[in-house]
């Protein structure tokens, strides 16, 4: 056996992560000191209401936004001091399925491979295999502007996997998808994780976190308000409230964020 690659102790690690935005309206503290630790091989859920700081945290962890203070490491690599090293370790699929509408699915995957340093031939082979995996072979040579929402999401996932990343960041991967497409994405996430990739998943859908995540953290107002496995968090709430049955993850979410829901004019609103 040759030299074995030493696996880092953590796949994702953040300490005291802070992000402030300054505009003419003043300074906004979007993330206020987030500490995180995700083990290799986990599916880690990162939950929170709109504007809680989920996406900003992901953007810092994926080198897409600067860190105001604190540190972040991916597979042991500091994202600030060695951003390109971190980029080689991660795959990123953000909220919008970021695709070039004037390229075909195959061209996007080949281009992505080339940008990660694969040769033209390796990139084409990897694209072919990923297109088969996400069942887009038949549409591979169509411009992506003709794809449905679910197809775009699957291609976006595939493009995040071209360079075989150790950690996959998925920012609200099922937002806007119909229930059937959502289930397809869930299956993909499970399959990717079974293949050994750590998944860092942000979502607003609590049933999604319950179905996919081994452990999760809930962020609210830029701070993590609770962390643990879904079953631990439910059992904790049941114990604290003296409930007869296990609560749902939704109950946990409302409890730790101090929110409740009100029905008004036919709509259900989340109120803090």
């Amino acid at each position: 056996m040759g030299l074995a690659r030493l696996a880092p102790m953590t796949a994702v690690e953040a300490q005291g992560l802070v992000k402030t935005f300054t505009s003419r309206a003043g300074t906004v503290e979007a993330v206020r000191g987030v500490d995180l630790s995700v083990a290799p091989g986990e599916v880690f859920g990162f939950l929170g209401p709109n504007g809680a700081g989920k996406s900003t945290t992901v953007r810092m962890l994926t080198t897409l936004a600067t860190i105001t203070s604190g540190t972040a490491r991916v597979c042991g690599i500091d994202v600030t001091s060695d951003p390109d090293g971190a980029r080689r370790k991660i795959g990123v699929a953000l909220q919008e399925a970021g695709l070039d509408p004037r390229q075909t699915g195959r061209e996007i995957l080949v281009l992505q491979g080339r940008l990660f340093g694969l040769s033209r031939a390796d990139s084409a082979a990897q694209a072919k295999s990923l297109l088969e995996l996400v069942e887009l072979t038949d549409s591979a040579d169509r411009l992506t502007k003709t794809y449905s929402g679910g197809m775009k999401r699957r291609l976006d996932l595939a493009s995040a996997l071209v360079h075989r990343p150790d950690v996959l960041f998925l920012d609200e991967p099922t937002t806007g998808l119909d229930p059937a497409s959502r289930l397809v994405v869930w299956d993909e996430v499970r399959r990717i994780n079974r293949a050994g990739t750590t998944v860092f998943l942000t979502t607003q859908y609590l049933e999604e976190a319950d179905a996919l995540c081994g452990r999760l953290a809930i962020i609210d107002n830029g701070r993590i308000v609770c962390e643990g496995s879904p079953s631990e968090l439910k059992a904790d709430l049941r114990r604290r409230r003296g409930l007869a049955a296990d609560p749902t993850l939704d109950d946990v979410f409302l409890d730790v964020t101090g929110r409740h829901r009100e029905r008004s004019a036919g709509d259900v609103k989340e109120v803090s």
Partner: protein
Amino acid sequence: MSAMTVLGERAMREARRTPDALLPTLLIPIFFLVVNVGQAAKIFPSDGTEFLEGQSYAAFQLPVSLLLAASFGTAALYLVEEVENGYFDKLRATPIPRSAIVLGRLASVALVSIGMTTIMVVLSLFFGVRIASGPIGFVLLVLLTAGWAIGYSGFLQVVALKTRSAAATNSAGLIFFPLLFLTPNLVPRDLLAPSMELAATLNPVTYVMEAMRALILLDHFDWAVVGIGFTVVGGFVAAVIALNVRTMNTYD
């Protein structure tokens, strides 16, 4: 192959697939050429107008159309679209130099401009225009126009990255029109009214236009005029590339 080349190839595919975006950049400058020549050709007959150097008024007007064709900045609008739809972040998440993302686009702008300028010069032959300085002059004319296209598109890319707004980028593109009209676009600089002559002298576009004219009208190389044109374009390109790289490196 460098990331810039790979991204340049992608931008070229994009240009090929959007002829509807390219056609106006060819047709509108030709329209201007036809209209301007139609309005003023009789005032400036080739045999009695010294500054035409024996050519038709279309030869004098061709640089105006070439500069207009090189100043549409469509690439910057595609860049804004990518910022808005998230593909820009996808590219930023790859381990390539940040500058390659914007410079790849500018490389394709240069190639498209070379194609467009060649087509326009060929079409202008039907107006009786000839490139008096010969094949080398033609190559210099194409390079000068491509340089201006890189500079202007680069400027709009900076606006696109700073504002992240298609509307703002589009509006910034209109700045070319006052710059174009504050030049000796209809007659040489020394025939302009004093205030216009001063404005044209202060306007860097004037020197690019005069260098183009020197290449089209003169059967020799007036290096003083051509050199100033290339210096202006070179400075413009260097400045906008530096700004593009700086903007990319600090993009958050």
